[in-house]
């Protein structure tokens, strides 16, 4: 690749404009096909109609989105806190790690859709709690797995130095293991943020409450029963925008925390 072209590709605007152009092309194509073949809106609504629905129904959809996001936030926060605590326990005791890690994996590989009905029964119809537990199960594993790996990845010579100066276990954890694990933890948290949202949505589908207070996934389901495809798609747009926002917020936090020292966020060499 020649220099001028490479410069165009690494330009900030280019990195925003290129995906935006692809999106516009896609939407125009979609709109064109719907109009040309006169596809009825209960099969495939045009992007313009989805946009209009988003505008008119936005208010009520955002209310439901808020419920979904609240559960997501609580599930993510508890996945982070408990995940780090579990990882620290694992790093302090081989016995604990060896005996418990397989169960963490078992919990991770069992599809949450299949456990959700059980959890709904056990929580006795506490909608919020059921969603919370399901989302937590999906979200905690990346934090535990990555942080455990990070806590074990300390530089051997630095560890020797800590021993030479007679550091306590707590000092080694606080000043050596936790900082070493930070980039690992953040990578795990970024995955777990998206998964928490997925977990909530999936369990909302399963939960199907008849109550008034329902999340966005329940609205999607409801819209699809009524063949209100435009509304369903408007809800989907909100959902994926939320997922993208979660990712970028976590990515920003991660960059901020590692900005001084970690290879992953340093500018490329010229």
């Amino acid at each position: 690749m020649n220099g001028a072209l490479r410069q165009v590709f690494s330009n900030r605007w280019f990195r925003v404009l290129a995906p935006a152009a692809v999106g516009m092309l896609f939407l125009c194509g979609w709109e064109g096909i719907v109009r040309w073949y006169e596809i009825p809106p209960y099969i495939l609504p045009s992007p313009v109609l989805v946009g209009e629905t988003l505008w008119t129904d936005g208010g009520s959809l955002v209310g439901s989105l808020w419920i979904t996001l609240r559960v997501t936030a609580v599930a993510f926060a508890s996945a982070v806190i408990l995940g780090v605590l579990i990882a620290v326990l694992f790093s302090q005791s081989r016995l604990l790690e060896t005996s418990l890690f397989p169960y963490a994996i078992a919990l991770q590989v069992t599809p949450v859709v299949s456990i959700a009905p059980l959890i709904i029964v056990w929580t006795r119809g506490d909608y919020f709690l059921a969603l919370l537990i399901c989302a937590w199960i999906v979200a905690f594993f990346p934090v535990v797995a990555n942080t455990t790996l990070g806590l074990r990845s300390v530089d051997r010579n630095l560890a020797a130095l800590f021993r030479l100066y007679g550091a306590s276990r707590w000092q080694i954890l606080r000043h050596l293991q936790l900082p070493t694990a930070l980039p690992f933890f953040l990578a795990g948290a970024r995955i777990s943020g998206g998964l928490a949202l997925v977990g909530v949505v999936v369990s909302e589908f399963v939960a199907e409450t008849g109550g008034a207070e329902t999340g966005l996934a329940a609205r999607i389901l409801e819209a699809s029963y009524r063949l209100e495809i435009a509304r369903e798609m408007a809800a989907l747009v909100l959902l994926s925008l939320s997922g993208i926002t979660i990712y970028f917020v976590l990515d920003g936090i991660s960059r901020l925390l590692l900005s001084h020292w970690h290879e992953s966020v340093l500018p490329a060499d010229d």
Partner: protein
Amino acid sequence: MQVLEPAPLLSLAGIVKVFRDGTRALDGVSLDVAEGAFVSLLGPSGCGKSTLLRIIAGLAEPSAGTIEGGQGLTGQIGFVFQEPTLMPWATVSENVYLPLRIKGRPRAEVEGRIARTLEGLGLRGFERAYPRQLSGGMRMRVSIARALVTSPRLLLLDEPFAALDEITRFRLNEDLLRLWQEQRWTVIFVTHSVFESVFLASRVVVMTQRPGRISADLPIALPYPREGALRTAPDYMALCRTVSARLGEAMA
């Protein structure tokens, strides 16, 4: 008449180290090191020099033999590794503060000491820099500052300058000697460079290849302070020739 010598700071007797895979790394190493001496351990790669250093530091256990460390050297040893081994998330001054932090000294109380140590190694103005912003030579200076900030009685260096370019290495050699003359800790300096060992040390101990044994113990009677001009002086060259010959015998 026998001259009474002061008890050595460090006394190794019959140190043997056999690794778990059966490799015999050290085979009966005995060595007395006097307080204030600058001893170079010279030998080919894989002669167990680094292993010996780790045993002296208490980071590894010998399979047999005894170590007597003067009046209990625990907590009075500084160690410099082959790589700078700095914490990448911490600034230069935080890295140097580390040993004191582990010992529970509040930062405010030792601020002056950290500043003096950094000054002595030419690191003034770099207190807030992160390791990645420094060159290899500067990182090694931080590593040495960290080892010296506790005012150790025994400083152990494991081929600290092996990865540096010659100009940087020479400058660090001279700075290390200057600090040694000011502060007079005892030094054990592991290297595989004949020229470096003769330039620095008051005594060069030559080790054989696996299993590691001491094959020659040579005093270097060049007066201190030693400076750059010494590197081309005839008596320095002659000593390098002698040491080189003994190293050749050790490797044969």
